[in-house]
């Protein structure tokens, strides 16, 4: 068996083993159902919730928030990244701010955002954007930094206009980093919004988990947690594989 294969197999065995162990400990009563329920029961409850349609509304709400935050973060982060890249002095001034950005607990701004936008989905989307946009911005900066200087000269030898140069050379050259930015924007939007829903009772899947926890509805709570876990792993996994394919084809600057 090739090394790559045995790595994948070992990983699967590891994960299956861990799940199996928890399952066993739960069935044997060593782990109390009040603490953690058996993984099989989580899966079963999730399937039931999907079938009964009660998952549809909170899931749709969360996806709407995540989708909006993602889109806004990518556009705003990308635009700001391009803007700051063109102004080195501004970039140097903002550097310490950006570097400390993720050290700040942003949930504390929620009441302020509610006062600004009202008690609806917007404050949570705003939190998602605050989380995700800087990641996109930093990735855009990195991508633009890494456009090889010779490419500028090639553009001039081919007598391209500035717009053509950006479209045909700068953007494709920065593409790998921009894609990384997209990945991070999704991850951070998702984390920020689910966490926000949970802590601040904002509706959607995160709120569903918090509510189930407080109502002692363990089955429902774990089913929802499993769902969130699967979505996060699934989407990030897919993006990761896509990223790997692009990296192999284009090489990395």
């Amino acid at each position, binding site marked *: 068996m090739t090394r790559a294969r045995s790595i994948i197999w070992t990983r699967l065995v590891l994960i299956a083993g861990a799940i199996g162990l928890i399952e066993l400990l739960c069935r044997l009563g060593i782990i109390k159902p009040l603490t953690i329920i058996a993984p099989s029961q989580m899966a079963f409850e999730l399937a039931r919730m999907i079938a009964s349609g009660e998952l549809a509304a909170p899931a749709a709400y969360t996806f709407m928030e995540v989708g909006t935050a993602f889109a806004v973060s990518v556009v705003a982060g990308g635009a700001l990244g391009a803007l700051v890249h063109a102004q080195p002095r501004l970039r140097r001034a903002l550097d310490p701010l950006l570097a400390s950005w993720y050290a700040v607990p942003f949930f504390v701004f929620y009441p302020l955002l509610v006062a600004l936008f009202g008690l609806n989905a917007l404050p949570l989307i705003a939190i998602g954007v605050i989380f995700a946009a800087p990641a996109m911005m930093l990735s855009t900066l990195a991508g633009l930094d890494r456009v*090889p*200087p*010779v*490419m500028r*000269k*090639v553009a*001039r*030898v*081919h*007598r*391209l206009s500035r717009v*053509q140069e950006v479209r*045909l*050379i700068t953007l*494709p*050259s920065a*593409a790998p980093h921009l894609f990384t930015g997209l990945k991070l924007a999704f991850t951070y939007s998702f984390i920020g919004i689910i966490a926000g829903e949970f802590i601040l009772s904002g509706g959607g899947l995160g709120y569903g988990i918090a509510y189930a926890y407080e109502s002692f509805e363990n089955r429902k709570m774990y089913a929802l947690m499993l769902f969130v876990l699967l979505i996060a792993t699934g989407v990030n996994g897919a993006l990761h594989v896509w990223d790997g394919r692009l990296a*192999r*084809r*284009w*090489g990395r*600057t």
Partner: protein
Amino acid sequence: MSTGDEQIAHATLRGVTRVYQGVTPVHALGPLDLDLARGEFFSVVGPSGCGKSTLLDVLAGLSPPTAGKISFEGRPVVGEVPDGIGVVFQEDASFPWLAVRDNVAFGLRRAGTEPAEIARRVAYAIGFMGLDDFADAFPAQLSGGMRQRVCIARTLVLQPRLILLDEPFGALDQQTRLLMGDELLRLWRETSSTVLLITHALDEAALLSDRVGVMSARPGRFIDLVSTGWARDRDSRIASDPGFGAITARLWAALRPESIKAMGRTAS
């Protein structure tokens, strides 16, 4: 073929100087004069930092001179790269996001050429540079030498009348360089273009060129112009010609004191 008669020079530089402004201004080049005859193969050698690349940038219109005039085909070169000049750079400038075929077609597509014509010229250039088997591959899958061939094909396909090359084989091993030199000569004969090659390898300059210009240490100026007198139909096997050794020796004799000067400067 080349010089010696009353042909109008293909490109000229007159009193060209380039000073880079900054905290301390750097006098990189000149004053420098040069006449490139139509269809000649001209090499430039010089110590590191003498301004060889700056010379190419200025000639191509990529960099404005601080003083002096440049003209190409009788017209002044100001600010932009004139039509008819092709450049191959030292660094790998192949587009990693395009397959070889699309890389080569890039310039033609920008120019709005007919698709049938594009396909024909691209196929020819790819075949000429020996890239047939890799037409659909991406540069990341190719070696450095092959990527340079892609860049040369991309330039060749536009049928430039003046081809400028800035140490295009710098990253390659000696044997590959010699073979690539032969390719370059084939290209030169086939297109009947004028070629200006910048190289740090004296043997390469001596082997390939009709004339070699030796530049001084910074600020670069021509201190010797050597005519090789080779026949047009030549390849790397001229290395066995006794004249080759004499030419290389003359180049080094002129270059050595300048190199020592340049080395002393960079060591400080």
